[in-house]
């Protein structure tokens, strides 16, 4: 069959090449959207961890000043015996730790609360809040 050049459509090879190019662009776009979404989700997690760390510090302070703790005041040992623990927030598993330093000479409590977690993207995060407990004059 004699086929005129100007009447022929696209060949299979041309179609395949254009499909591959389009697919690559779509995949690239998809990853870009995914990255944007990941950024937003991870920012939310950071904010949640920050709020949790704040709450935890306040809890520690309230417990300290309400004398609801195991006495370690004289020795400077852990005055709020509380094990490190794994917590869940917004679908992320974070490890949480509280470092407490109590100087035996001056009895100044200094507390650090740290949340560390790894996002599904593989990125590591850490939020650390520290506070010297200072009682207001009554």
């Amino acid at each position, binding site marked *: 069959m004699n086929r005129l050049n100007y009447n022929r459509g696209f060949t299979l090879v041309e179609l395949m090449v254009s499909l591959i190019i389009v697919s690559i662009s779509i995949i690239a776009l998809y990853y870009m959207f995914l990255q944007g979404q990941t*950024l937003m989700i991870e920012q939310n997690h950071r904010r949640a961890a920050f709020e949790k760390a704040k709450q935890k510090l306040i809890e520690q302070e309230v417990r300290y000043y309400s004398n609801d703790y195991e006495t370690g005041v004289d020795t400077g040992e852990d005055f709020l015996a509380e094990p490190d623990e794994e917590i869940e927030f917004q679908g992320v598993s974070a490890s949480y730790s509280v470092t407490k330093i109590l100087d035996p000479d001056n009895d100044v409590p200094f507390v650090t609360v740290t949340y560390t977690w790894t996002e599904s993207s593989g990125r590591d995060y*850490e939020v650390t809040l520290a506070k010297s407990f200072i009682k207001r004059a009554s």
Partner: protein
Amino acid sequence: MKRNRQNSGATLVEVMVTLIIASSFFVALLKIYTYGIEQYGTISMKYKMYEETSWAFEQMEEIIWVASSANITSSRLELNIPEIGGDAYGSGWIEFYVNGRDHTLRMNDRRNGFNNFNQQILPVTSRQRIRRFGARELVYGVIDAQYEFADDYGYSIKIDLTVEDLTAEDDEDDEVKLLKISTVAFMENRI
């Protein structure tokens, strides 16, 4: 050359024109999206700076409340903390200063020795590895802290903090990059 209209496919010119229109459309959409993400990044960083600076202010205000006296020298605030309530609370000096090398606001609690509790209070997060499209770390730094007595009698202290979004472009204006925020705290325990 005569062309049979019924059998004709798209000509190369038609295909090219369609492709150019479609590409422009997609590029425009993409630009809108990336602009949105950038705006989100900027606003999110501003919010983070504000949130964490407010936290730092809370820390400072608490200490100013109990301070019996204050020294203000060249962007450094020193507060004398008296012993309150007997044996459970230490007395001595606590100072706040900006470390120019790493752009952090630090609190040096000298009640336990000169550098025992020298703590970074801003930026709050000590480690964060967020990368915007693999480009840079999302961080901010403390550029300046100014302190002054807010009244003639030295009962209150005004704190001005300037923090900078280090991820913003260099040519962006100050309103985008900088957060200037102030507070005034009363020295309730001043002798």
